[in-house]
Structures are given as structure tokens and as C-alpha cells.
């Protein structure tokens, strides 16, 4: 069995260690005896989303995001078909704008997204920081991440991916962050999200591997997260 991953716009996006997510997925799938084929697609390329099991895009500065959004905007129908077919989308950092609605830049320019998600974005001053969050309705497991962004988002009508315990949500004072719709995982958390959060990695690997999935044993990722959580707990006391 072979798992096919489509990596979107690697020359524009994925400049914040986002490759870590691909490394983690590939490593886990190999450990389960599955082949993993990663294909890149860029501006102007054919993107048969339904032929892939997972579609991934990583963080980018606005200079990289805007050409990618312009290329993605007319692909709504193909994206919708893939979403309805249960394909997994993982979008980290500013890449979540690819599937969202309009992005309003500081100078008033409006850039269209693919409008698969009912959310709109706005360019604002830069925010950086760390997030500690839970998954709404999915227990008390804590998820960790970082953001470094110049965007805020209105996504009130979408199901959030995270509920923040600490750090900023979709916009200042918002407690919800990201979107979880069908199999779309979209979050402003940037970089190696799946390495930082092995639970999320296992969730995706289980969906991809189906009956061949086996939980993994010890991992440095999980130990690193446990160490970080212990440090946070100590700080709280």
C-alpha cells in the first residue's frame, strides 16, 4: 500500500520548519511498512487533489502566500471534491488562508482564497508567541505550538481545531483557533506541528494507514512534549 502526499507550493511556503511534518508522516508510515510518496506542486501545475491521500501546505510570509492564494483561488471545485471524498488537508501557519475566504491587506487590497472554509482574514500587526490548547470535545490532552503571523481571522461559523488555554486564538482575545472541517486541519500554529504533538501525528497516521495502523512505542517527540509540559506545570506552580 502506498500513501500519496501532495506538498503545495514548496518554493513559496513551508519556510518555518514545516518540512518536519512531512518527515514525521513519512517516518511513521515507513515504520508501519507503508510506502510514502511525496509529490510537490507549484503555481500553474495540475493539482489532482483527489488522487492524493494528504495535501499539505506550510507557513509563508505574505510575499509567498499571495501568489499561492492567487493560484489556489480558482481550484475550489477540485478542492471541494477532494474534501467530500475525505482527503486529509493539513495547513499550518498562514497556509490556512489558501482554503479560506477573502484576505484584506493593510492597503485595502482584497485577495481571494479558495472559499472552501467560511472564514475571512485581515492583515494586522505582527504577533508572535506560543499556544497551549485543547481540542474542543476531545478531552484534556494539551497541544503545543507557536505562531508568528501578521494575520487575524474571523471563522465564527466553522468548527475550531483548537481551544486555547494560553496564547492567541484566531484573533486577539479569541479562544478558538484554527478550523477542523471534514478532514481539513487548518491552524496558525506553524512549523513541525506533528512533531510537537505526536497525538495529532498518530491521528493522521491512523486515518492514512487504516487497518495497517499500529500505535508506536517510545518516541523522542513524545518525550520532548512530556518534558515541555512538565516544565510548564512547574512554572505554573
Amino acid at each position, binding site marked *: 500500500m502506498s500513501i500519496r502526499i501532495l506538498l503545495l507550493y514548496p518554493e513559496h511556503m513551508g519556510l518555518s520548519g514545516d518540512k518536519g511534518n512531512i518527515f514525521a508522516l513519512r517516518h511513521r508510515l515507513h515504520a508501519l511498512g507503508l510506502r510514502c510518496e511525496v509529490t510537490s506542486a507549484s503555481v500553474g501545475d495540475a493539482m489532482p487533489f483527489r488522487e492524493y491521500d494528504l495535501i499539505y501546505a506550510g507557513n509563508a*510570509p505574505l510575499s509567498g502566500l499571495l501568489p499561492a492564494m492567487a493560484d489556489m483561488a480558482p481550484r475550489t471545485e477540485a478542492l471541494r471534491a477532494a474534501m467530500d471524498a475525505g482527503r486529509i488537508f493539513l495547513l499550518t501557519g498562514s497556509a490556512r488562508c489558501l482554503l479560506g475566504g477573502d484576505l484584506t491587506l493593510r492597503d485595502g487590497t482584497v485577495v481571494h482564497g479558495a472559499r472552501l472554509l467560511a472564514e475571512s482574514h485581515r492583515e494586522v500587526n505582527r504577533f508572535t508567541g506560543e499556544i497551549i490548547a485543547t481540542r474542543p470535545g476531545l478531552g484534556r490532552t494539551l497541544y503545543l505550538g*507557536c505562531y508568528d503571523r501578521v494575520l487575524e481571522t474571523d471563522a465564527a461559523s466553522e468548527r475550531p481545531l483548537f481551544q486555547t488555554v494560553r496564547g492567541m486564538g484566531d484573533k486577539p482575545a479569541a479562544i478558538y483557533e484554527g478550523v477542523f472541517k471534514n478532514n481539513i486541519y487548518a491552524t496558525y500554529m506553524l*512549523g*513541525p506541528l506533528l*512533531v510537537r504533538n505526536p497525538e495529532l501525528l498518530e491521528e493522521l497516521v491512523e486515518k492514512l494507514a487504516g487497518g495497517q495502523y499500529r500505535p508506536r512505542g*517510545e518516541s523522542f517527540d513524545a518525550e520532548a512534549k512530556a518534558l515541555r509540559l512538565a516544565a510548564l506545570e512547574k512554572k505554573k506552580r
Partner: protein
Amino acid sequence: MLRLALFLGKIVRFLRRRHSGRSAGALALALCPDFYSRLTVEGKILMVTGSVGKSTVAAAAVHMLRAAGLRVVSNCEDRGLRTGTAAALVSAADYKGRISCDWLVLEADGRISDAVLSLGKPEILLVTGLFPHHGPASCRSSAIKSLIERAAGPETRLILNALDPGMTDILPELPRIRYGAAPGANARPSMNLVGPRTSCPHCGGKLSYSRVFHHHLGEYCCTACGTRTPPADYLLTAGESTSPAFAVNGVPFCTDLAAAHHYLNLTAATALVCEALGIPVEKAAELCADYRLNARFYSETQLDGRRIVFLLCRSGNPISFDRGLEYVAARPETKTVLLYTEAAPLPMSADISWLYDTSFEFLFKTAETVVCAGDGRLDTAARLHYTGYKRENILVCHDDSQLSAMLGATRGTLYILTGPVAAERILRLLQKGGRP
């Protein structure tokens, strides 16, 4: 208050002369907030900036200028650009705040304030490279470009890296010369995860590369507007990663570190000194003859018969780390690598993104055992695991006091890749703990 700041700063500097000068600089700035504006520089200024390599270029230039018998003041000899700059000027200034020198060589990036820039406009401004998005915020291209615009005066001459397409639109009204590397100067194919910029800074068209040098450098050509790598006035014409010899414009140089990135930095320093003094490359090669890398960047020691090599690799900076990893990978002997990684500064202290822009793949199959220590030990171990290392070849040291014993069970030359503060601590631990 300036006199008091200088007086106390010089005392602190003397008392802590075996340490970095940061405390002297911090004290001077605390006592005299307008410290820089009260100083007068009686000499010409050379400024070295860029995303990576500026410390090495500035240090080599300072060495060559001093070898030419000139009086040189520089901030590249103290750690930490903010307080290090103040510390260097505390040492150099008299009690009236006069800095008498022939040349003030300033290493600069986004951390350098406008107050420091008010010391004067640089005669020559050298830019080593511009990285669009990686590494510390103060070293990103936006921060460096902003600094260049603030620092340069109408008479400033620029020295630019010809291999960096990001440099093509820097202050086009100013005169410039360029340095670069000829094909063959770095024969190793690039293994870096992070590649050079792909869009033309002029027209946004696609850049194609006939070769890539390190991460962000290469022979480029825009497929839309035809912008291409300009010719270099100072050209690195030889230099392999296993030989200590290289050449600039065909003139042989010799150095103590066989590493291609080091040669390019020395080519930049040569360009700077030749342009500043109006001397030929042959003379620069003479001035460079006894140049040795500052121990902050590279040092070797023997501990109970085992060779220990320290390489400066800053956590959070994939560009810096990649060069260290590439260097270690090219050494043929049996070796153990200690990666001592530290947490990023707040507010992104848990940000491990940089590990996944850093090419730890260089190490795979070239170092038998890797020891991970420091705050980021488990994150680094996870990253190594994803390169293909088996768990049993990755040793994680959770307690620094156990480091010596853990390293004692490993073989071969010990390469320590970390920042300067951690390096001092590790060496002390190893000396206390006996044979590593």
C-alpha cells in the same frame, strides 16, 4: 554621566577581562542612556552586515588591518551585538568619549540601534548575504535591508555578494563592487533543506540556478527579465572542504580551517581590506598569512589524549548550524558529535522550527554516535531520528553533570557544536569530569 559610565565600564572590563565584555557594555548603557551620541569617532568606519558570516568577515578584516599596522577598534571581538558594541567602545574611548583609531570595524544587524549608526556613515558597507525568512529576526533580509538603508551615506561604497540574487536591488545609486566564487570552488553538492530564493527581486519571475552554493547563494538567471549573477571583482577561485588552501583572483591564501564557507568569508574580508586600503590582493594574502579563527568560532583542544573540536553553531539559526554540520561531515576520521542546543529566546522559546530547516542529514552515516544535550536535547534527538539515525546511536544527556561520563563511552574525535556560552560551560565540565 559619560565619564562615570566609561570609568566604571573600564573597571568592570578589567575585572572581567577573562570573560565577555557584555557586562561592561550593559553597565555603560544603563548609566548613560545616550552613550553612543556622546562618543566621537576619529577614524573611518567599515560596516559588515548580512544574515550570516558577518562575525567571521569582520574578524578577518580586523586581523588584516592590524597586520598592516593600523589602529583598529571593533565590536566583533565581544559577544552580543547590543552590549558587545558598547563594551568595545568603552574600552576604546578616552574619558572625553573620543575614539582614536584608523578604522572602526562594526559588525551590524537588526540589533544595532540608530544610536550606534549615529557614530558616523561607513566608508564601506559590506553585505554578506540576505536570507528571506530563516534564522533570528534580526538577521532576516528585511531587518538587514532596513539597516543598510539607515546606515549608508551618499559617499558609502558597497561590497556585495555576487552570488546572492537578493542583493541586486540594494541602494542602486551607490557605487559597488562584488565578491563571489568561481564554479569548482565548492565541489560538494548542496544538501541543505533550505534552498535559495526562487523569484527575481526585479520582476518576480522565476530564477533558475546553474549551481547552488550553501543555502542561499548560487549562479542565477531570471527566466523572465534575464537578470543574472554579476561578475565578481574578488573571486574565490579554488578551495575544497578538505584542504586548508584557497585562492582569491588566483592569489594563494592559506588558512587554519578547511571549509568552503570560511573561504568565501575570507574572500569578502579580502575585498573589504583591499578596497579600504587600496592594496592589491597579493598584499592582502600577506596580511592574512597568520590569521587564525577566533576561538569563539573554532577551537581545538586535547583532553587526556582525545581531540576535542568546538564549532560555533547558534541554536535557532539553521544557516549557522548547517555550516558546522557540513564541516563535521567532511572530516574523515571516527568521531562523536555533541549537539548542545538551547531554547530560543522568548516569546518563541518552544519554537523548534529551526531544527527542521537545519540539514542534520549531513551527519547521517558520517558520525557514528551523536550526543544531544541542553534544553533542546529531546527535540534535537527527534530531529536526528528523522534523518535515519537509530535510537541506540542517539544518546540524550538529561543532566549536564553526566555529560563527561556519557561522552567517555564514545569514540573518536569529539566535535562540539553549540553557542559560545554553552561551549565554555561544557569545556569546564569535561575538564572537571576527566576524560570524555
